């Protein structure tokens, strides 16, 4: 069974079968990360436009490396140096990029729905690399690949997400993805970051509960996803950094409350000593570096599938016609 992906704007509209297919298609790209020569010529002559309207280091480097390893060229647009600073609208900027004829556009924007808006206005595959507090699909896919590799399956896991859930697109995409496989969620953090509306994410019947005490939230957890705490959002009197560390930092003692084989994930960038203790970050349960490597595989798969299906003819030829 195979699927076509014209756009990759979010995890929410995908089915469990489509997600499984995407993860399966990422496996051959995991192998390539282990080859002595990691560069393919598969997308030679294709161009990937990387439009990052919000500062990003790791996601941009990951997509750029994924494109390079597939042999594709890149156009780079970065917030700091872009014409946005000069007052150009989003639509004009992406139309300008489109006029240079890329084969795919990867974009990040601070506004939720920005990728969807661009996809509706351009006749080009769009990959959402994060839009506001909405979705970050490639992150959820790489997390799922990491979990599936370690656990063998995504079915029915207890997932605890720690930190600023309210502002996290990573949390939303992860909930959308893992809920399709029957996972149960515990969201934990300061009450101001846990609005009741979060319980409505995922398909009907998804178990999502909110807790403010980390000791309760970690009980029976199979997966612990620690989010980055954006320090600009921590300020008195709402919550001081010291207070957050005291109440919510993932420490070895707290991790022992979870299942003994629980996995720890972090989307990065990680601040040691704030949301996570070094002993946990470097411990055997931590998947942080696997996540980074798997990110390349997932992004290579996305670029490959979207660009190759964009210019494929509708009908299938006989398997030996091209031998």
């Amino acid at each position, binding site marked *: 069974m*195979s699927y076509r992906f014209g756009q990759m704007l979010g995890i929410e509209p995908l089915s469990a079968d489509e997600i499984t297919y995407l993860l399966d*298609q990422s496996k*051959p790209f995991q*192998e390539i990360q282990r080859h002595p020569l990691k560069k*393919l010529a*598969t997308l030679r002559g294709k161009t990937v436009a990387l439009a990052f309207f919000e500062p990003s280091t790791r996601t941009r480097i990951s997509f750029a490396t994924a494109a390079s390893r597939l042999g594709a060229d890149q156009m780079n647009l970065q917030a700091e140096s872009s014409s946005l600073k000069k007052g150009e609208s989003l639509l004009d900027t992406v139309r300008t990029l489109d006029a240079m004829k890329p084969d795919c556009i990867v974009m990040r924007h601070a506004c939720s729905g920005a990728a969807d808006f661009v996809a509706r206005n351009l006749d080009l595959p769009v990959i959402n690399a994060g839009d506001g507090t909405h979705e970050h699909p490639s992150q959820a896919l790489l997390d799922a690949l990491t979990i599936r590799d370690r656990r063998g399956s995504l079915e029915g896991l207890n997932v605890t997400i720690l930190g600023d859930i309210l502002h996290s697109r990573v949390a939303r995409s992860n909930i959308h993805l893992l809920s399709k496989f029957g996972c149960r969620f515990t969201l934990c953090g300061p009450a101001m970051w846990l609005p009741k509306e979060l319980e409505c994410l995922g398909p009907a019947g998804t178990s999502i509960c909110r807790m403010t005490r980390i000791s309760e939230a970690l009980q029976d957890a199979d997966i612990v996803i620690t989010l980055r705490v954006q320090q600009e959002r921590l300020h008195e009197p709402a919550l001081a950094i010291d207070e957050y560390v005291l109440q919510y930092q993932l420490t070895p003692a707290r991790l022992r409350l979870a299942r003994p084989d629980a996995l720890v994930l972090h989307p990065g960038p990680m601040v040691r000593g704030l949301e996570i203790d070094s002993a946990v970050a470097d411990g055997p349960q931590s998947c942080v570096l696997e996540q980074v490597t798997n990110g390349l595989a997932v992004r290579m798969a996305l670029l490959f599938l979207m660009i190759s299906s964009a210019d494929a*003819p509708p009908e299938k030829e006989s398997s*030996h016609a091209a031998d």
Partner: protein
Amino acid sequence: MTATEIDRTLQRLAHEIVEKSGGTANLALIGIRRRGVPLANRIAQAMRGIDGVDVPVGTLDITLYRDDLSKVASQPVLQSSDIPFTVDDKDLVVIDDVLYTGRTVRAAMNGLFDLGRPKRVRLCVLIERGHRELPIEATFVGRAVQTSDAEIIEVRLNEVDREERVLLVERVS
């Protein structure tokens, strides 16, 4: 070709490879997905009967190395390559069902050289049907068949197709 003929041909190919390589030392087989894989396994099994040695077998998926990505199928499906040994300094025999344009073999060689530097690479095919578009020839040939461009060679193997035969059919256009 019937099941018995296919089996006899593979036995003969196994003997030929062992003979021309002066034994099985340093030898390894690479089956090209999909139908080259069961053929490689069967040849390896036949070699065990000849030399009593297990020749390592790897499998290679060449989808990512094709030069006609957009023309192959509406949506390519990738499968895993699995080569559980280093190809450096190995004497490799690449195995596929049909040799036609030669483009699959070119792709396979690109894939192999991304993994290392084999000492030698030779090609073994069950059916050689002509119409090459690249300067590639097989060292070991099961059967050479005269074909026209309008014909298709259909190799059907138990492991993949649940039946065992080789057919020459007209292309339905």
